[in-house]
């Protein structure tokens, strides 16, 4: 018995040593991704389960261990920034605002690790920022255009054949809808608790429809221009003419009201249609039409690799994981099971909604990205607050733009 126990003990020790040795051979990767599964359906797969499953094949193929951490959206931007400053930050990371990361050289230059074919596969590769060495540091993804939704039944109820999209005609139509149906023509989320959330739906589209560019020829932020003035004046008119409901406070309220049939037109992200508006007869429209034509904003979040992977010795594996995540096969699965976004690589083919695809494909030249720049979030907060102040009658459109730029240049950036 004693001999048996001794042999058993030795065997256990040997196995432990062997597994430790094998584990030490394996490279490890940590991947940070924000939560994207918002469905409450019972059969909805969680982000964690989805990514753990996706990485099983990658781990087997590369003899490595991938630890996926799902982070909540609440403070994601601040969390991943500070994590990249730390020694134990993630290797592969989902990035929202990249300006500070690029400026502080926290991301790995990807060019040396990628083939021309791989770069060519990424549809928005030209939008990726570069580090000091001229290497692209992110794989940009199309986060989806902020799209218009029209309640067709409400428009008909107001005696209109269709909702006119040109700014002035649109305002008149909204007034008619309110007069004839007692319901709102148009609602916007001006009460959002962050300027970024408010502006992405309620300002930047109009700025682009007025022909505005965010960065001037010197690469400096400047919205105090003709397009800016037209966009802000349009917003003021919407408010003064009683189109905007002054009670709109939250980000979700306009969507909820559209879902309840209480409003004729809203701008929202492109995922809302098929999931939230089941009780309304609705259709997509690309955007309103301003002095310069159509214009819609799209977001470009991205995936990147922590530059510290160079010191950790797993840079190559991290880039491999990055390209695996962003590959058409994985993203098609992600878009079908977790959250729908437009394809952002050429080898991606999943299209969830043909109607939406038709609307966005017809206006690809009118889709604009809000550039990254220093202190962007605070700039957007300042602009939002000044526009709110204009609604309260304290600022003119000219003052909104002048004060925003003045505060930005004197207080928000170090010149």
């Amino acid at each position, binding site marked *: 018995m004693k001999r048996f126990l001794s042999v058993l003990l030795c065997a256990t020790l040997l196995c432990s040593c062997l597994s430790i040795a094998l584990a030490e051979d394996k490279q490890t990767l940590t991947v940070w991704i924000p939560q994207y599964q918002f469905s409450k359906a019972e059969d909805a797969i969680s982000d964690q389960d989805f990514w753990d499953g996706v990485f099983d094949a990658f781990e087997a193929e590369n003899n490595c261990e991938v630890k996926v951490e799902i982070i909540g959206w609440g403070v994601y931007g*601040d969390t991943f*920034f*500070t994590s990249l*400053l730390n020694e134990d930050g993630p290797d592969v990371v989902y990035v929202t605002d990249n300006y*500070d990361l690029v400026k*502080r050289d*926290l991301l790995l230059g990807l060019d040396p690790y990628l083939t021309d074919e791989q770069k060519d596969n990424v549809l928005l590769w030209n939008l990726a920022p570069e580090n000091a060495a001229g290497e692209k540091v992110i794989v940009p993804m199309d986060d989806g255009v902020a799209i218009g939704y029209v309640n067709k039944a409400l428009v008909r109820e107001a005696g209109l054949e269709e909702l006119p999209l040109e700014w002035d005609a649109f305002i008149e139509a909204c007034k008619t809808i309110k007069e004839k149906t007692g319901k709102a023509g148009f609602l916007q989320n001006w*009460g*959002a*608790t*962050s300027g970024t959330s408010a502006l992405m739906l309620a300002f930047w589209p109009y700025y682009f429809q007025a022909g505005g560019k965010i960065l001037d020829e010197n690469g400096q932020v400047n919205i105090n221009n003709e397009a800016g003035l037209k966009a802000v004046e349009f917003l003021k008119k919407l408010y003064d003419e009683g189109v905007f409901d*002054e*009670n*709109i*406070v*939250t980000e979700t309220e306009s969507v909820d009201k559209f879902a309840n049939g209480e409003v004729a037109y809203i701008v929202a992200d492109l995922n809302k249609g098929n999931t939230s508006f089941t009780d309304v007869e609705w259709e997509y429209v690309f955007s309103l039409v301003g002095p310069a034509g159509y214009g819609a904003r799209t977001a470009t979040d991205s995936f990147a690799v922590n530059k510290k992977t160079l010191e950790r010795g797993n840079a190559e594996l991290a880039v491999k994981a990055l390209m695996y995540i962003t590959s058409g096969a994985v993203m098609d699965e992600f878009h079908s099971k977790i959250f729908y976004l437009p394809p952002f690589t050429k080898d991606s083919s999943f299209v969830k909604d043909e109607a939406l695809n038709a609307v966005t494909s017809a206006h690809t030249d009118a889709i604009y990205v809000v550039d990254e720049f220093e*202190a962007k*979030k*605070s700039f957007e*907060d300042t602009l*939002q*607050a*000044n526009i*709110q*102040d204009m*609604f*309260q009658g*304290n600022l003119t459109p000219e003052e909104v733009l002048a004060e925003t730029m003045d*505060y930005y240049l*004197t*207080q*928000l950036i*170090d010149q």
Partner: protein
Amino acid sequence: MTTAVTRRRASKRTRREALIGAAYIAPSFVLMFIFTVIPIFLCIYYSFTKYDMTAAPEWIGFDNYVKLAANKYLGLTLTNTLQYVLITVPLQTILALLIAAFIAGSLRNRFGSFLRSVIFIPVIASLIASAAVWNVMYEPKGGLINQFLGLFGADPINFLGKKTTAMPSVAAVAIWKNTGYYMVMYYAGIMNVPADIQEAAIVDGASPWQRFRYITLPILKPITYMVVTMGIIGSFQVFDLVYKMTGGGPARATLTVAFMIYNYAIKDKRMGYACALAVGLLIVILLIHGIQNLFFREKEDA
């Protein structure tokens, strides 16, 4: 000779007691020193630097303070913060005192204990969760408060969406949250008021109000001092409620100093500038605390 020996023994005992006392407070002192005192000095140092958390801090002298002096929203932010302090501190102090006096005087039974627990519940509730619930209650359409006001024919009020009502609405949540905590402090103080003094006053024919005004209130003065001090310091640092409920809006109506510090430090990654603002806030709090001390001392002398 005997006197000298006794004195030496007494001095030895005093030293030993002092050492034991020091040993008791040492752990808290070390923690306080590491997590409070050192950060204050670091903050003062960073306020003279340009520091973005990645590169080493660069000494720039008084530049941050000069820039801060020219910040056009600083005055507004200080006014907002003061407005918040002036609403919350007096109201939460008076409410806590009145509730404690009422429970201690008229409800020394099971119902009183139950009421105390109910009023204390907001203290243990998460501030962010509370703010989320109050956001829903403040909704202009369908919110509980507007539904209630609607029963009396009142039009819906956009509590958090109007400049005039946003700050009082946020402050009301803070009062709801803090009153229970200060009520417990006052309740403990009232229960310690010597019964014989109260009885003597009753024999002398003092009315309940006179007993409260001339006996209870003066005895509670140290507690009031602590409640007001903690209230002022806490209110000047208000951040979480504003962050969750309004984001500083509408049109900066609820932008407070602490929220502004957060924006500069975390959103813009400008630690030096944020630290300069934090040092400014520290000075303001110290000044107000000094004035408050003078006020309480004068009352004491009188």
